[in-house]
């Protein structure tokens, strides 16, 4: 998914221009809706504060992605290797996503503390699902002709996994990972809202309570940029690793 950057920029610019204009035409107080220019000024002027908190949230997200990857790859492989296991685990996998993250966030904070650990787990809970499902789907979509070929070659399951199924599923894996990283910020921020001492989510809650709406928006801008950055990074890795497409 590669939108022409020109079009994306034009759309963003039009929305911002309309927003800026309406803020100037209808004089709203800044604590209700600040104009984009004010948000931009805050986002730059408070950069040290924002950066320090973004670092915390960023590390939580990256660690969350790491944890999610470990769980997802293990789970998808196990479910692919064993049909009964797949049938046994599938309902729990779905259930894990049916429960709203908000509902378990306070529990995770109780279990894992106010520090980053609970946010890492929260992010991982959200991210692992699309990766697991895509990867499993990828494994299963392998052309039966190749399965026969590897069967005749007498390849062990480990070798089939390494030489056939894993590369075959790699594009699916990346599709899942892209969905995963784009929602990763949600998990971390919700975790920070429920209870934390640092992070962009923490900053937003603090600023919101003081009606510093421009700072809330500035934090959102930083968060969005982090999300886009992660997405771009995954896209870069995909182009490198899935070099045959």
């Amino acid at each position, binding site marked *: 998914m590669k939108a022409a950057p020109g079009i994306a920029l034009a759309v963003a610019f039009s929305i911002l221009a309309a927003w800026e204009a309406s803020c100037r035409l209808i004089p709203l107080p800044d604590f209700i809706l600040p104009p984009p220019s004010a948000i931009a000024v805050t986002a730059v002027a408070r950069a040290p504060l924002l950066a320090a908190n973004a670092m915390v949230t960023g590390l939580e997200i990256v660690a969350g992605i790491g944890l999610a990857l470990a769980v997802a790859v293990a789970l998808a492989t196990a479910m692919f290797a064993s049909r009964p296991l797949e049938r046994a685990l599938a309902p729990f996998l779905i259930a894990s996503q049916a429960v709203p993250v908000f509902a378990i966030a306070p529990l995770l904070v109780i279990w894992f503390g106010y520090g980053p650990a609970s946010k890492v787990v929260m992010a991982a809970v959200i991210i692992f699902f699309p990766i697991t499902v895509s990867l499993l789907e990828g494994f299963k979509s392998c*052309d039966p*002709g*190749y399965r*026969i*070929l*590897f*069967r*005749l*070659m*007498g*390849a062990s399951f480990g*070798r089939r996994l390494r*030489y*056939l199924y894993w*590369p075959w599923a790699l594009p699916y894996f990346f599709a899942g990972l892209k969905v995963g990283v784009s929602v990763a910020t949600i998990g971390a921020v919700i975790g920070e809202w429920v209870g934390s001492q640092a992070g962009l989510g923490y900053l937003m809650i603090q600023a919101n309570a003081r009606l510093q709406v421009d700072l809330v928006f500035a934090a959102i801008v930083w968060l969005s940029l982090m999300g886009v950055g992660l997405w771009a990074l995954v896209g870069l890795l995909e182009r490198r690793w899935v*070099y*045959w*497409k």
Partner: protein
Amino acid sequence: MLEIIGIRHGFRDLAVIGRMDLRAAGGGFTVLIGPSGCGKTTLFNILTGVVPGQRGRIVWQGRQVEHLEQTAAYMQQKDLLLPWCSLLENALLPARMDGRNLEEARRQAGELFIRLGLEGFEDYLPAEVSGGMRQRCALVRTLMFQRPLVLLDEPLSALDAITRRSLQSMLLLLQQDFAKTIVMITHDVEEALLLADRLVILSRRPMRVMETIDLDSPKPRRASDPELLRLRERILDVLQQELVL
């Protein structure tokens, strides 16, 4: 010698293979020809153990076997090259999968690449070369199985007429230079006549052997040979009647 005795097969209440007896002489080129959808591929799936045989026996070199998973190499209409591996890596796959000495395998593959005109393309990805070259690479891989029996499931039917001609002569190499026992499925009567020592005409579903023709004229043969042209008409007549019925 490969013997198939009284093989029968069905899906639900659809009889796919009627009662099939077949003998393929050791070192011989046996070609199965029949109307499409008659169950030829099911027969290969039973032989390779992909589909469990329901009735009948498979005898290889005088010994009854469950299937030929460890005995046969297999080549399909689709080249089934791994798109993420270079041509050379694809050719080395059988050696890699059963843990053979890779140095030795590399040397053999190198020789075969020269024989089949793939020299210089070792490091290309399958997507970067023509369909004919891909199929030649698949042929190298088939040889790299180092199995005495080769099953060919319409190996050339996806190629254009000119490429097909040149590959037909390469299939003869399998028999003449590598002393393989070959069983090939094809729709192409001319191809069958050019290659076969024994030509087996199959009925439509439920599949059984209608007629067996032994050809002992030396190879390579010419398609314009009057004897072959006469046979060709006869075979087409038989097949056509089978379709009209």
